[in-house]
């Protein structure tokens, strides 16, 4: 049985660990609130631009942008993997990367080539180890996603799409559902599909200034960027809440460990007292 002093030291060290995890939990909680606000603040833009892009695809335009046309044959795939820069946030990055890896294997089996853009340190390290072709990356985003920083790495993929170097573009990130639940998600960014294209056509068209092509080009690039920005913002909110939950469970575990150690310590103390007493009694009986 370990001596009283040894157990006391152990308790102290677990206590200091608990203090750290508790502090990290509180920091994550306050950052999470801000990250959620930012995520919500980004929503109106996404909705508005979706409306405008929807109107645009309904309006009678004779110019068909490559972003809106589905290619018959998919030979090369682009993937934007959004992860966090830092660890200690539970299974957040692992889950999203596992999802991405599963898809990557599928694409590989189908003989499709892959180009990856890694946003976040964790994803970058993983993709490099996995031997994926990383065409651009972005790390050190901090706590606020800045659209300005995203433009460059994203443009590399968009340019590749325009040039036909990739035929389809996906994004993988962690969707924020609520504080307790985050879900790894992979969805298709390009070509823009589903509700945006189709539906009934309007009998009107915009006046374009200076001309349809430039305006539509600009708008669609912004649309894609807005969707990526939204994903990054959601990923950050997910990261903070995942970290908060992970740190909370770590603190709770530390509390349990301390409780158990205290029990062992008290038992050891009592055993020592009993032993001492019985020694004294035995000594007195001998005299």
């Amino acid at each position, binding site marked *: 049985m370990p001596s009283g002093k040894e157990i006391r030291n152990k308790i102290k060290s677990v206590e200091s660990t608990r203090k750290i995890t508790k502090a990290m939990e509180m920091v994550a909680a306050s950052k999470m609130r801000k990250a959620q606000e*930012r995520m919500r603040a980004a929503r109106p833009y996404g909705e508005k631009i979706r409306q*405008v892009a929807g109107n645009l695809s309904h309006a009678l335009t004779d110019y068909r942008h490559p972003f809106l046309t589905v290619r018959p044959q998919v030979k090369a795939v682009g993937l934007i993997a959004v992860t966090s820069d830092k660890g200690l946030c539970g299974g957040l990055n692992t889950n999203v990367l596992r999802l991405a890896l599963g898809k990557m294997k599928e694409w590989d089996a189908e003989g499709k080539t892959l180009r990856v853009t890694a946003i976040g340190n964790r994803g970058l390290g993983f993709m490099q180890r996995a031997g994926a072709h990383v065409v651009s990356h972005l790390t050190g985003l901090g706590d606020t996603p800045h659209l300005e920083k995203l433009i460059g790495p994203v443009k590399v993929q968009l340019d590749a799409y325009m040039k036909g170097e990739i035929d389809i573009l996906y994004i993988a990130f962690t969707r924020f559902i609520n504080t307790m639940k985050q879900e790894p998600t992979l969805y298709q960014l390009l070509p823009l599909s589903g509700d945006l294209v189709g539906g009934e056509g309007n009998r009107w068209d915009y006046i374009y200034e200076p001309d349809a092509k430039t305006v539509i080009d600009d708008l669609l690039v912004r649309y894609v960027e807005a969707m990526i920005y939204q994903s990054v913002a959601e990923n950050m909110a997910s990261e903070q809440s995942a970290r908060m939950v992970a740190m909370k469970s770590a603190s709770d575990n530390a509390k349990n460990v301390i409780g158990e150690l205290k029990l062992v310590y008290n038992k050891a103390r009592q055993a020592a007292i009993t032993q001492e007493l019985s020694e004294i009694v035995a000594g007195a009986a001998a005299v």
Partner: protein
Amino acid sequence: MSIRVHVDVVSAEELIFSGQTDFAVFPGEAGELGIYPRHTPLLTRIKPGTVRLKIPDSNEYELVYVSGGMLEVQPALITVLADTAIRAHDLDEAKAMEAKRRAEEALKDRSSDVGLATAEAELAQAVAQLQAIKKLRSRH
């Protein structure tokens, strides 16, 4: 009461303005655009500048600064999709080139990069150990 039109000014990072107006002036790329309600559908780019929105039934203007973006006009709704960053074609190109260059660099010394990550982790561990030892020493 005059005829009004709803105006939304949004950027990727926040909702800047949302409200009613009966006359608005935008810094269009080809020149200032004055828009009244029930304007014909229009889609254009705008320059960095001030958007002036007349407050209904007064002669005052609400001023909103935008760093460029897109303007969508529909008869009953005006939407400004403001940029948060200063955008220009060359600038975007430069950013993309920069991103590409960094990726290529990382690719070139991939082995050393992974080595760096491992080294970093080891260093962090060593620092943590040292701190732990220091703490233990100060206690006894």
